[in-house]
């Protein structure tokens, strides 16, 4: 039976990972994800989890060790943030190209510089195009649930791709929240042992990580892209199974009070919780506003996106990241391209907000709703001084 407990979200996420019985965990410390591997090492040290915990000397080696372990057929897990993610960047695309279902928790944090340890999404956006599946948790419960779901999704025979679960640094990782933690029996029922497509063992030798020359690279890339596109079906299936077993519903884009809303806000991650309160308050005042919370970043849910904005006049996309010298925020750019061919698409505004850990309050969201339609450019740094 699931247990309702109050726990720091990073620790709860670690408990969730442990329930998935990972075989190998390789991690290197970096704030703010560190409590996850720390707590996992506690669990291993207490003998509650039979796993190899490798204290690697860098994030590059963390992801590389996960690749090697995953290659043997082991269930491999790591966690990181910000500069750590950038340091493992080289290996990330390779892991997905090799179809190794490594699971990674990311305690999202701004990329330097100036150096900043607090939350935004600039870290995860650097690996947008590297072939990983990517989920965003809005709260502790989602973080716990997604950790468990992610192993099942990644290891599905039709997927075999790495996946990351994004938890806003501090805003989620360091918050204590009341949440349900499933028990081992329930997780064992949901998540069977990994059945690898191939494994490094002399009884069935395989060459992994071969050289792709120009006459095969295009085909190999198309195959990778298709694998990501096709993974959507598996994600939806796993979420259905989750809902059936645990009663909590997951969708690529969760709509909150969008019925009849003229103005709709879009968020990823923990800001959705704050935005909900703003929507409630404005609705109470008779202002027809709504909220879309994106939970699935890769593969991007194009179809759900189109459906979600039907009838909406103005869509304010919030981005906790700036594509410097580019189109504003990466989420808004994606939403715009998703809706480009739609005849009745909303006006899309893009607010860059909550950068480097700056608080985003209920009042901020209310103000953004009130200012809807008044944006001057294609994107704006909300609340910037000067």
């Amino acid at each position, binding site marked *: 039976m699931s247990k309702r407990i109050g726990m720091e979200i990073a620790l709860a996420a670690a408990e969730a990972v442990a329930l998935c019985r990972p075989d190998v965990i390789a991690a290197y410390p970096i704030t703010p994800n560190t409590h996850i591997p720390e707590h996992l090492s506690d669990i291993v040290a207490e003998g509650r989890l039979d796993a*190899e915990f490798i204290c690697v000397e860098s994030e590059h*080696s963390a992801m*590389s060790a996960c690749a*090697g372990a995953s290659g*043997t057929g082991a269930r491999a897990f790591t966690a990181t943030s910000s500069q750590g993610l950038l340091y493992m960047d080289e*290996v990330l695309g390779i892991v997905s190209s090799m179809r190794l279902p490594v699971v990674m928790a990311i305690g999202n944090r701004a990329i330097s510089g100036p150096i900043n340890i607090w939350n935004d999404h600039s870290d995860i956006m650097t690996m947008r195009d590297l072939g990983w599946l990517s989920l965003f948790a809005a709260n502790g419960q989602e973080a716990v649930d997604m950790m468990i779901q992610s192993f099942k999704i990644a290891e599905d025979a039709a997927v075999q791709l790495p996946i990351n679960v994004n938890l806003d640094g501090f805003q989620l990782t360091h918050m204590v929240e009341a949440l349900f933690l499933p028990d081992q029996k329930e997780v064992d029922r949901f998540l069977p042992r990994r059945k690898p497509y191939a494994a490094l*063992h002399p009884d069935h030798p395989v060459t992994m990580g071969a050289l792709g020359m120009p006459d095969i690279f295009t085909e190999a890339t198309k195959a990778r892209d298709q694998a990501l596109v096709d993974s959507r079906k598996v994600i939806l299936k796993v979420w259905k199974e989750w809902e059936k077993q645990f009663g909590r519903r997951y969708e690529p884009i969760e709509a909150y009070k969008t019925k009849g809303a003229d103005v709709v806000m879009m968020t990823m991650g923990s800001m959705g919780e704050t935005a909900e309160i703003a929507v409630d308050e404005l609705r109470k005042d008779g202002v027809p506003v709504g909220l879309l919370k994106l939970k699935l970043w890769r593969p991007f849910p194009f179809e759900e996106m189109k459906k979600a904005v039907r009838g909406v006049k103005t869509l304010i996309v919030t981005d906790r990241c700036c594509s410097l010298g580019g189109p504003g925020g990466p989420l808004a750019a994606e939403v715009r391209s998703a809706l480009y061919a739609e005849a009745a698409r909303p006006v899309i505004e893009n607010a860059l907000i909550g950068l480097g850990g700056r608080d985003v309050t209920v009042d901020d969201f209310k103000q953004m709703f009130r200012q809807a339609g008044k944006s001057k450019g294609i994107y704006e740094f909300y609340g910037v001084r000067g």
Partner: protein
Amino acid sequence: MSTAKPISIVENFEIYAPKLVDKEEFFCSGHRACQGCGEALAIRLMCKALGKDTVIANATGCMEVIATPYPATAWTLPWIHVAFPCAAAVGAGVEAGLKVLRRKGVNPDRYIKTVTIGGDGGTVDIGLQALSGAMERGHDMLYVCFDNEAYMNTGIQRSSATPFGASTTTAPAGKASIGNKTWKKNVPEIMVAHNIPYVATASPSYPIDFMNKVKKARSIQGPTYIHCLSVCPTGWRAKSEECIKLGRLALETGVFPLYEVENGVYRLTVEMPDPLRPVTDYIKTQGRFRHLTPDEIRDIQGRVDLEYRKLMNKVEHSLSWTE
């Protein structure tokens, strides 16, 4: 019918030792290494010594490129390549994975050795951090560095394993330059400083010695390291047929003595000539050293002599350190 003089196999066991080597090939024909590649040969010999129950993790480099152009592979051993700097970390993951899967009964209850291989660039430069980490953590893994003394795969650029005075494409000899201005980094010694149970130098020019070292390292449960000088005729501007000879000259001149360090105790494994041959004998056969003046060669001779004395001092005294 042979008319050659009959030679007693018993009295000349070493001559016939190649006949006794396992005939099974794990690194197969059809690979695309250059003619006379000392590294491809070394890998072939290493695999014979390792045998079937082995998993290989390979750093990016010549050997990865020439052996696995998809959909072809020269490997019959399970093999994984991820990237350039991280082979030791990949090997660490493989080792951890094999260990835990065996413990949990997922894999058969049988010992499988993890062996990580890389060139000098992937080992002593960009891969040094991952190597140090893996050795320091004590993974049950053999790491073999195939040192051809420059970045051959990308076109003979200088690495920290390139010897003093060698001309490379990024440390070229010229009117104002001797070529590479630094002395070869002593990575076997760095490995010894990690206090791992076994470190050795090797060369495919001494195939039985090399294979014995691989077998010994394989039998040790823990981190072990072999630094294998792998002659690259292409990059060294030497004749392909002289590949083996160059490895021998490296030993006979004292440039690359073959030794092993077992639990801190140094031992020469191939007898050194006394006196050593002059380094000129080694240098003059290679185009990469062609520009060197007699004075510069004298400098190299001085350094080789010094390093050799340091090594011999350890060979003579290291046993007493453990007493």
